[in-house]
């Protein structure tokens, strides 16, 4: 199959209502999906498994960053894996966007493709949310020496050699900036990692809005980043 060298890594925490549909939809294009169940208290893990995903279960809740790192370690266990996609479990990402990003990385000139909400006008994020996200991007760009338009997007495609070198230690929310920082300072055979951005459409449904982070969390993320 066309995309069997791709693994989707999906951190999963209490998404029983949507995870089966998310996995089904994604598996139509990407057969390999690992859901890292981060100590869910509902039926998330079971539903993901029945929908055809591989499931790795954290014995206790560790946080989304830790779940991503576990997913990376799992995907690296497949020697035919060439690319890892980080994908959210709540259904706000579009599988067509992932497809475009994977096609982008297959061209071979970059090792990482980041999804960005701000490359086109498809998104419906509220004005304060946009402001906070842009401030976060500005901060990340300054501190990591990268130039991105959206650093806190859950959609990324990473080539195997990049995944091998990533080591996320920020268990909670600051992991997005940590990934960018590590990629920014990473050297592959002495060269900087090349990356590109692709526009993605985030579907802010009532469900994802209800589960989404409040803007107050930006303060917590900042504190976590400073007090590494």
């Amino acid at each position, binding site marked *: *199959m066309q995309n*069997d060298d791709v*693994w989707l890594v999906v951190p999963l925490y209490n998404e029983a209502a949507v995870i*089966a549909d998310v996995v*089904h939809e994604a*598996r139509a294009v990407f*057969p*390999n999906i*690992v859901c*890292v169940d981060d100590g869910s208290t509902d*039926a998330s893990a*079971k*539903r993901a*498994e*029945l*929908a*055809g995903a*591989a*499931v*790795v*279960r*954290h*014995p*206790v809740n*560790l946080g989304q960053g*830790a779940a991503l*790192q*576990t997913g990376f*370690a*799992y*995907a690296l*266990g*497949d*020697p*035919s*894996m060439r690319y890892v996609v980080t994908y959210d479990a709540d259904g706000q990402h579009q599988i067509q966007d992932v497809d475009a990003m994977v096609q982008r990385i297959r061209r071979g000139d970059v090792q990482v493709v980041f999804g960005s909400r701000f490359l086109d006008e498809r998104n419906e994020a509220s004005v304060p949310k946009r402001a906070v996200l842009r401030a976060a991007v500005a901060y990340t760009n300054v501190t990591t020496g990268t130039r991105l338009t959206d650093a806190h997007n859950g959609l990324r495609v990473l080539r195997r050699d990049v995944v091998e070198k990533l080591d996320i*230690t920020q*268990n909670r929310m600051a992991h997005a900036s940590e990934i960018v920082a590590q990629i920014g300072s990473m050297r592959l055979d002495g060269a900087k990692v090349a990356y590109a951005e692709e526009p993605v459409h985030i579907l802010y449904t009532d469900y994802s809005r209800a589960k989404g982070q409040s803007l107050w969390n930006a303060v917590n993320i900042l504190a976590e980043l400073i*007090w*590494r």
Partner: protein
Amino acid sequence: MSRQSVIQILLIAAVLASAWRLLVGTGQRTQAVRRLGLLLLLGLVVYSIIDPSKTWTNLARALGVGRGADLILYGLAVAFFGFVVTTYKRFRAMETRYTRLARRIALDEARPATEHVRQTGTGETLSADVTPPPSVKAADAD
């Protein structure tokens, strides 16, 4: 006055820098110095119990602080700050170790990726041995 405040600023910076090293350092020497300091403080406390009249006030005067009580308060503030930072660091280190442990357990208990690919490699949903998802929703709805 300005000349004096410059030297004050420099002194304060030097004291804070050494206090920082002493309080949050993890090396053997800083730890030893920290413990000796604690011993010294305990000795001083015992002495001030024996002779409560002027011990702290004299020490405070010698350091340019008004009263003994003020000196103790300042010392406490600095010590508390050091405690917060060392505790935070220790906590982070512990969290990292415990995450690695939990991850190891999670990966050991999961079916390996290669095996998963072999079993579901056709891109089809697990079928024969499992109930299809729609009825599953009903089955485990609790």
